[in-house]
Structure formats: structure tokens, C-alpha cells
């Protein structure tokens, strides 16, 4: 199967600091994987390389057939439309309602979609994350977990083949974190590959998914689904 994401000997250096060091990996379409490792291991940089927020210093990064390492700035939008992004701090626009935040992603990316269609698809996405009733609420009126659900709805409303999440549960309590993880698993079931960077080993252990362990920018372990879960669950 053609990989959705492929890193080939990728390094990323910030000044004297090597954030990612000669890393190679593949993620298949519809696959869900966790990126784990201590702070500074390179998890966030890896995600930023996928989304071309940063360029690799060496090597190649391919996402859905696009060469991220060599993509001109004029084609960034093309890449970004194929990658949904979820952040630890949600990054919702406070002056827009939940519905407007989700529809915003459609309005600014696809002019073929009418307002009605954008609203309809956004409501569907909010319903999928269990927030249909909160469509008219502003981010400030929502809990952290609910805000993260809105952010996930925004990330998947245009049905990208890949969703990347950087510490999506970092600001949430354990129960809510588990609900969000369940939501990400549901998204993966519908064919979107999901890559989650996290410190939360409990949800990694419970999710029974592939685990990519990073340390000092290097991939030190790549444990397939099931085995990793049992191993981590046992040690947690």
C-alpha cells in the first residue's frame, strides 16, 4: 500500500539543536498512531514537518504524494487542505461561534461551497463530535473538552486524508482526554489517518494503536498496534 506519510532520512536542525535526526517512517492511510517521548524528543517538530510549518534540513517528507520538503510556498494551501490539525490550545477564534469556527475552515479553502452547504457540513461535523446543541455557543462558553471537540470538527470538516494532533489532551482531565481519544479513533475508523503526539501514556496504553517512540529526535521504537498497548498497559 502507498504510504500516506513518508519520512526518508529526515533531519531538522534549529541552530545547534538537532530536533529530528535522520528519521524514516511510514504511515498508511486510515492508520492511527501515537508519537510518544519526553519533552524535546522531536514529536512536535515531526508534526510541523508534516504540515510544512518547518522545512527539513535534510531528507524528504511526503504527504499524500506531495513533496513537503520541496513544496513552494504557493502550494502550501494544497498541502494544508489534506492535513487537519488539532492543537493543545485549540486555536479557536473567540469571536466566532462553534459553527462559524468549523465553517470558517470551509469558507477559506473552498469557494465552490455555498454558505448553506458549509453550515450543513459544519453541523454534521459538530454532531459527529457530540456538540450539535452547542453550535451557537462561543468558545468562551465551552469547556476545554468541548473546545477541543470543536477544533477536531474544524480539522475534519473538509474530510482530509490525514489528521495530526499535537498534545490534544494536554489541557484536559483524564476522563475528557479519553473521550477525545475515542473521538480520534472514530475518525480513524472512517478512513482518515490520525497521528497523535502525546505525553499521556494511559490513553496510549488503552487505545491499542501503533506507537512511535522518539528520543533526542530519533525514532527509537516503532511498536505495532496491540503489542504496544499490552506492553504499555503492563508497565503503566
Amino acid at each position, binding site marked *: 500500500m502507498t504510504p500516506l506519510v513518508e519520512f526518508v532520512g529526515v533531519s531538522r536542525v534549529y541552530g545547534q539543536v538537532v530536533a529530528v535526526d535522520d528519521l524514516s517512517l511510514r504511515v498508511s492511510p486510515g492508520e492511527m498512531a501515537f508519537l510518544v517521548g519526553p519533552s524535546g524528543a522531536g514529536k512536535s517538530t515531526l508534526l510541523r514537518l508534516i504540515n510544512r510549518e518547518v522545512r527539513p534540513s535534510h531528507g524528504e517528507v511526503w504527504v499524500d504524494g506531495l513533496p513537503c520538503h520541496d513544496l513552494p510556498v504557493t502550494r*502550501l494551501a494544497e498541502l494544508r487542505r489534506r492535513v487537519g490539525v488539532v492543537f493543545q490550545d485549540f486555536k479557536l477564534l473567540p469571536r466566532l461561534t462553534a459553527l462559524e469556527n468549523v465553517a470558517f475552515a470551509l469558507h477559506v*479553502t473552498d*469557494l465552490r461551497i455555498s454558505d448553506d452547504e458549509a453550515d450543513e457540513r459544519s453541523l454534521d461535523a459538530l454532531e459527529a463530535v457530540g456538540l450539535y446543541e452547542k453550535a451557537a455557543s462561543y468558545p468562551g462558553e465551552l469547556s476545554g473538552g468541548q473546545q477541543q471537540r470543536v477544533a477536531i470538527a474544524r480539522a475534519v470538516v473538509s474530510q482530509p486524508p490525514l489528521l495530526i494532533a499535537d498534545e490534544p489532551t494536554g489541557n484536559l482531565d483524564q476522563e475528557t482526554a479519553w473521550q477525545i481519544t475515542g473521538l480520534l479513533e472514530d475518525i480513524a475508523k472512517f478512513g482518515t489517518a490520525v497521528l497523535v503526539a502525546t505525553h499521556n501514556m494511559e490513553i496510549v496504553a488503552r487505545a491499542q494503536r501503533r506507537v512511535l517512540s522518539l528520543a533526542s529526535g530519533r525514532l527509537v521504537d516503532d511498536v505495532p498496534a496491540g503489542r504496544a498497548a499490552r506492553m504499555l498497559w503492563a508497565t503503566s
Partner: protein
Amino acid sequence: MGNLLVGPKPSRWRLYRTVTRNALHYLFGSALRNWFRNLGSTAPALGSMTLLLFLTGLGGMLGLVASNAASIESRSAAVLHVYLKDSATQDDIGALQSRLRSETSVKSVTFVSKDEALARAQHRPGLPELASASEGNPFPASLDVQLASVDKVGAIDALVRNDPIVDQGVGSTSYDPNGYRKLQEILFGLVAGGTALLLLITFIAVTVTANSIKVAIVARADEIGIMQLVGAPRWMVRGPFVIEGALTGMIAGVVAGGLALGLASIAIQAGAATFAQVAPGMTFKVALATALLIVVVGPLLGSASSLTGIRRQLET
């Protein structure tokens, strides 16, 4: 032709129509919505832009007045009055006129009789009293020599000063070398100073406006970042901000232009009798043209400032 099928327009046409409508709705609709939403962060830019456009307009009008005044002064300074003896005959005067007209730097020569000189003096402060205190007409006849430029006055003065029919008693001609030099210096200073002041105000207006709009854009860096992260093309990121900038500039331009026009109109009406002398060339039409220029420059300045401001927020 029987096999020609006439059906509904191709769906591609509907798609173009939808895309165009959505693009316009997105650009103008969201720009308008965002402008009102972010009025708090835009207000300082709007205020400073209004004030500076107003000052620039006012500076422009004053510059025009100064330039007109300088031009009038320069024209009148290029007139040499050659005073004639009362004993000068028409033949002598005619010969001198012909001699002067043969000079390339002379544009025209006009004879002013003693009676005309007296009539002119009636309109000059202090001279009517002098006329009434004298027996008869104390003012000499003269030849008013209009020269191509102020620089040539000295040469023509030297040519005629010692002519037998020229009246040495009243200073022979109106030429005063020091006076002309001073006048030239003043005119040059007026034009140079006015131009420098206008350029300075324009520079301050552009810089302050650009910075105010930049601050308003930086305050919305998150929004710009999110737009880029969800895959908005660059023109869709820039577009609403440029239109918002144009809207800010248009409002500032209309207010500033209105203020400048209002102020100029009041000044013109209040001093209708003397205004033409105090501010030559300053008419309602000129004030209106200046106001319209401000209204046009406002949106251009606003959108250009936005374009520059947002460029720094875009990924490279």
C-alpha cells in the same frame, strides 16, 4: 439543425457563478463583518489616518496658496517701471519704447501717463495723501516693462537708466538690486520650505498609518495563522485584510476630505473680500479637488498599508 440539442447551461457555468459569488461574498462580506468586529483594534489606525490625511490636505492647500503667491510675486517683480521726465516728448517716448521692445528679454512695454499714475496711486496706502498735499500731479509718467524673468531686470535697468528722457529725480526706474535678490531668496525659501513640509507630513502620514494598520493586523495574528493552517490560499488570507484597510482608508479619507473642504469653505466665505489677496488661487473648486484627492488617496493608502502589514504575517 434538427439534431441540435438545447438544454440547460453546463454545470461548469453554475460552478463559476457560485465561485464568483462566494469569492465576492467572502472578500467583501467578511471584510465588512471583520471591520465592525475589530473596530476596537482598528480605531487608532482610523483616527491617526483621518488626522494625518486632513493635515496633508491642509498642507497641500497651503502649498498651493504659497505657490500661487510666489508666482504672482515673481510676475510682479519682473515688471520694471521706467519713470519719465515730464518734458519727454511723444517721439522720445516712442523711440525708447521701440528700443526696449527690440530686447529679447522684454515681453511687453506699456506706457502709463501721469493721469493713469495718479489714478493708480489712489488705491495705494499713503499715496492719496501725498497727491492731495502736492500742487498738481506729483506722479511721473512711466513705461511698464514686463520681462520674461526677474533675472533680466538688472540688465534692462542698466540699458535705460541713463537715457535723457528718464527721470533721475525719482530714482529713474523701480529696480532695486538688493530688493530683488531678497525677494528671490524669499520665493525660493517659500517653495522649498513648503515642499519639504508637505513631504514631511506625507511621510509621517504614510508611516503612522502603515504602523497603525500593522498593529491592528498583528493583533489578529492568530486568525491569520489559523487561516493558513486550515489551507486558505494566500490571496484569501490577504484579500479581506486589504479590503478592510481600504475601508478604513475610505472612511478616514471621507472624514478628512470633508473636514478640509468645510474648513476651506468657511475661510473662503468669511473673508470673501480679501481672501483672493491673502490666499491667491484658493477657490471652492480647488478645495473640492483637494478633498476628492484625499478621499481617493485614503483607500489606496489603507489597502497598501494592509498589504505591507499582512505580508509579514504570511509564511515564507
